[in-house]
């Protein structure tokens, strides 16, 4: 398990591994928003939590199609299935590696980008908390989508189409928690719902992903 995690993270940092791609995309989206909606500080401040959540979600989506497709192409997936690792565990570890290389940097970068969008001071803590709580769910749900599309040529667009509706609840509760935090309201309810979604998906989705992978490799 640890070997797979270390390998995936190592690969992400090596040339062509795609680390930083999501982060760069997050930065681009955030920087472009003021150009498209105008520089009014009040407007930017009020949409900042939503924009940052959406940017993080799309950045996560960006690297999903490499998550399993590369391992499928070079035969690693076949070898992993015949290895002593339970496939459910392997899939969870790959999702964890995806979160560490994509989700975690987004969480850490979000406050900086929050400054650019004039996020109210009260919102920073809640934004980071909601992203930290919600991005693992994005990685795990995304892994399921990646497992569904693993054998499909040019499955990237299909992957986005499949995953997008699955992301809706996470996005709603996450962005709502961040928004309420920024407005000085009590974000406990959406935050709890978000936590519920994250724990449920982290616990259950790997089984669906592994089942789908086995079906797809047959």
């Amino acid at each position: 398990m640890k070997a797979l995690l270390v390998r995936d993270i190592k690969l992400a940092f090596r040339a062509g591994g795609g680390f930083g791609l999501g982060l760069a995309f997050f930065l681009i989206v955030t920087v472009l928003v003021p150009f498209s909606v105008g520089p009014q500080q009040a407007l930017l401040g009020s949409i900042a939590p939503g924009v940052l959540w959406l940017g993080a979600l799309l950045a996560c989506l960006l690297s999903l199609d490499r998550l399993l497709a590369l391992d499928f192409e070079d035969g690693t997936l076949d070898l992993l299935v015949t290895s002593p690792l339970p496939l459910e565990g392997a899939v969870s570890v790959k999702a964890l590696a995806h979160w560490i290389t994509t989700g975690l940097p987004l969480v850490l970068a979000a406050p900086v980008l929050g400054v650019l969008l004039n996020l109210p001071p009260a919102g920073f803590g809640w934004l980071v908390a909601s992203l930290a709580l919600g991005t693992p769910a994005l990685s795990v749900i995304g892994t399921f989508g990646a497992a569904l599309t693993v054998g499909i040529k040019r499955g990237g667009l299909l992957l986005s189409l499949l995953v997008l509706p699955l992301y809706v609840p996470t996005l709603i509760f996450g962005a709502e928690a961040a928004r309420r935090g920024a407005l000085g309201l009590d974000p406990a309810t959406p935050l709890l719902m978000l936590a519920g979604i994250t724990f449920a998906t982290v616990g259950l989705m790997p089984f669906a992903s592994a089942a789908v992978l086995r079906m797809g490799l047959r």
Partner: protein
Amino acid sequence: MSIWQYANPVKFLSLSAKVQPVLWVAAGFCVVVGLIWGFFGTPDDFRQGSTVKIIYLHVPAALMAINAWFMMLITSLIWLVRRHHVSVLAAKAAAPVGMVMTVIALVTGAIWGQPMWGTWWAWDPRLTSFLILFLFYLGYIALWEAIEDPDTAADLTSVLCLVGSVFAVLSRYAVQFWNQGLHQGTSVPVATGGRTVSDVFFYPLVMCMVGFGLLFLALVLYRTGTEIRLRRTAALRARAGGNV
């Protein structure tokens, strides 16, 4: 005599050939009579004016949009548990029908919303849920199209349908939480046994709902037959080893 004998494609085709003519006629009768009754034979609502006539399209379409997905969920489960081809092909056949129903519900809802709410589109929980349902249909159909091996496609789309159902319900609650909504309450609250529309509107509405249901059944039976024939064609070709 078990119901599962109709899981055999050939048996299914012969049964469906017997049932279909009746079904098509009944569906056509109910839809046409219901819509004409509703359009010509009912008065305007004192608040909503003549726009109330849209209800005869909007509500049955919305009802079938949800029921189609529900049917797909059940048939997908049957495929995953019992591996009956007809079951999963019925799910495949139902998806485009359900999607068109969703589109009708969305379009008529938007047209209805314009005069009532003053806007074509409002991010009302019900409309939003239907938009999400539309995306699920789109993803399901796209996944079927993308996978070459029919059995793998059946497996993966069935799991997607299962997982998608859970997330669809989750989305419904999330969306409700997120916006309380402009939409009027349900027109036919089956659970309470009561109803919020008066009889004048109610009977033609029931007629339309039955009609849309029968139409859905007829379409799904026909389309399942088509899918079975396509699979049989491919199977015969493959067995003949490229000689045909």
